[in-house]
């Protein structure tokens, strides 16, 4: 891609030129400069800290679940406690971690950069979304103290109506988190429509932006239905209004319809941005334009639309109408097609590229492998007769962990590794990062392949105890979880270490060409030195890779001098 920003040969620049402005990290300091910031990058980083913390909590809960299942009678907890632990694992991972993970943290940081914009369209709403996320999270934590929740993250009625646990506060937490998600999505749609750089047509938008766009549409249209559902659930729990309670004439299956009308699109709210990240990472680290760009862009949109038509495949055994099931199964099959297109396109992009086995690329390759497993096993579950057998077994558990954890979470971490030098101007220890990527890939498969197996054999999910013949699978799975845990702990360790003493990142660490790599490293407060204009192709690695010579970090003396001269931080 060519822009009006001069490109500098990395061999001769030497990184000695000074920035024009201080980076967004240095432009102001103090707690309030973060908590009250309207800068999309700082908001993105605050989300990054928040969702990573949620991931660690959720991960610890998952590990407790796995440890508990070491023995058939349950090694750690009473069943009641076990039910709370797996429910909290689900709620934390789904509502607090995965849904905001990529859009709200990476999306916030990267999207305006990719669009050549100084900020998102609605910075105040963006900050408000963050505080809604905080409020929702606090409500969720409050409900743990207040008796936890033992309904599973799906809150199926009527169990969720009669359980004595804190369903109301958790429901309100989910309601608030939902609105955080809605406002983030709404903000991104407006940003993509109204804030693109001059010359950046829709088809010159990086695929990450397409993915975020498709995601945002889902967030805006599907989440309100979840909102009204948990609201009704809360009313019902307190006042017995009866809409979902058969005792009072309600229909529990209707709750499932409402819940999955949101929660199936929510699955794509989780995975689509991950696909976007992977598209960018694969392109940059293969130094090659995305193969089949338009088809990938359209497949994102078509996945988003189809996702509204298939929610009933979560309910094949629920007693819904057989005729509706046929329609849902038929439509479900169409999800497989755009998904397959994406996988083929990614592999075709790597084919013939200049493939760097960097840490982000290793995470992306791990994503590709696990996502393929997740996608293929999804077809089993969309097939009517086979799903009757597999529904609510560990096969389902393993399938959605392949898509959620093995794919979305890995894509999230691929993206974090990819944009880390841009975010902080420092690099992590890449050797450790590669080790951790391999550990996670191995750990994932050791954890979840046995779960596919025992699901096929008929091990139902959400069991605090189980029959002895499944013990060996559970034990292998627990060992895998330990490997996963080591991989993630290592990752958190070297990432934090890089902030304390990592080497300075290069101006363009990976040789990216999209607009996000045309900013100083780390970017300015308003991102660009000059308003960018796109003139060339989107992923053009042949016309010179931008290496922003002016972005070498300033040392303290230079900073003070220029602050005095130009009146920064007055």
């Amino acid at each position, binding site marked *: 891609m060519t822009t009006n920003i001069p490109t500098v040969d990395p061999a001769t620049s030497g990184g000695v030129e000074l920035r024009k402005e201080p980076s967004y990290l240095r432009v102001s300091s103090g707690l309030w400069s973060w908590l009250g910031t309207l800068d999309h990058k700082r908001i993105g980083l605050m989300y990054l800290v928040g969702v990573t913390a949620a991931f660690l909590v959720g991960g610890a809960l998952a590990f407790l679940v796995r440890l508990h299942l070491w023995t058939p009678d349950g090694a750690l907890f009473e069943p009641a406690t076990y039910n709370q632990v797996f429910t909290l694992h689900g709620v934390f991972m789904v509502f607090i971690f995965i849904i905001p993970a990529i859009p709200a943290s990476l999306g916030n940081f990267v999207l305006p950069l990719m669009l050549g914009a100084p900020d998102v369209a609605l910075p105040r709403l963006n900050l408000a979304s963050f505080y809604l996320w905080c409020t929702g999270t606090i409500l969720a934590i409050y409900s743990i103290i207040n008796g936890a929740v033992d309904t599973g993250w799906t809150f199926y009625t009527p169990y969720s109506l009669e359980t004595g646990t804190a369903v109301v506060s958790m429901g309100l937490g989910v309601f608030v988190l939902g609105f955080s998600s809605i406002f983030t999505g709404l903000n991104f749609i407006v940003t993509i429509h109204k804030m693109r750089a001059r010359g950046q047509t829709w088809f010159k938008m990086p695929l990450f932006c397409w993915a975020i766009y498709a995601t945002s549409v889902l967030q805006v*249209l599907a989440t309100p239905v979840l909102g009204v559902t948990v609201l009704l659930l809360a009313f019902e729990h307190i006042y017995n209004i009866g809409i979902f309670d058969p005792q009072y004439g309600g*229909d529990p299956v209707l709750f499932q319809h409402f819940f999955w009308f949101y929660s199936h699109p929510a699955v794509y709210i989780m995975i689509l941005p991950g696909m976007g990240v992977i598209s960018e990472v694969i392109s940059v680290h293969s130094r090659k334009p995305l193969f089949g760009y338009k088809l990938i862009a359209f497949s994102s949109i078509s996945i988003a639309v189809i996702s509204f038509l298939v929610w009933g495949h979560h309910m094949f055994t629920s007693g*819904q109408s057989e005729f*509706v099931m046929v329609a849902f199964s038929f439509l479900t099959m169409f999800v497989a097609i755009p998904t397959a297109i994406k996988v083929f396109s990614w592999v075709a992009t790597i084919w013939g590229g200049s493939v760097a086995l960097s840490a982000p690329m290793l995470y992306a390759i791990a994503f590709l492998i696990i996502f393929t497993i997740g996608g293929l096993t999804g077809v089993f579950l969309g097939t009517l007769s086979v799903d009757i057998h597999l529904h609510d077994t560990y096969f389902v558990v393993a399938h959605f962990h392949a898509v959620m954890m093995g794919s979305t979470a890995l894509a999230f971490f691929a993206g974090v590794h990819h944009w880390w030098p841009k975010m902080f101007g420092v690099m992590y220890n890449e050797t450790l990062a590669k080790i951790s990527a391999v550990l996670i890939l191995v750990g994932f498969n050791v954890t979840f392949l046995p779960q596919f197996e025992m699901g096929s054999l008929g091990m139902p999910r959400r069991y605090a105890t189980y029959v002895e013949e499944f013990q060996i699978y559970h034990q292998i799975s627990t060992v895998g979880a330990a490997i996963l845990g080591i991989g993630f702990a290592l990752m958190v360790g070297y990432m934090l270490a890089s902030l304390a003493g990592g080497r300075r990142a290069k101006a363009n660490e990976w040789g990216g060409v999209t607009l996000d790599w045309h900013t100083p490293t780390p970017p300015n407060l308003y991102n660009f030195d000059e308003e960018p204009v796109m003139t060339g192709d989107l992923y053009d690695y042949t016309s010179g890779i931008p290496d922003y010579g002016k972005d070498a970090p300033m040392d303290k003396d230079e900073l003070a001098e220029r602050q005095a001269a130009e009146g920064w931080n007055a």
Partner: protein
Amino acid sequence: MSDHSTHGAHGHDEVVVDHTHHAHPASAGLFFAIYAALLFFTFLTVAIAEPVSGLHLGSASMFIAMLVASVKASLVMAVFMHLKWDTAMNNIAFLGSLIFLSLLFLFTISDVATRGQADPAASTPAEYQQPVFHEYEHKGGH
């Protein structure tokens, strides 16, 4: 906040005088005509409703009531909300939601309407759909 205030150095370098080209004030007469039409349709809604008029329209009554309401809603949206003059994208953003909403209606309603009909030998649909919990003792309230 503080980020932006420290950045005021860039100054107000762009001044645009008057900026009314996105305003399309419609005529007051049109607004009044629409208002009158809305009142008329409200009267119509009431006049054809069974509890008021005693008309027996049967299953068509729901359809007619919703049709009249849709006409009223369309008038409000097109004129009062300026959708008629608004950008295509704003139209899509708002009216698109109705398409997705209709999916929720379509699938949930067709589920409830056809539940239990695939297996006529098992039981009659009426029996199948009949709630059975009243056979059991009601539990105490919360």
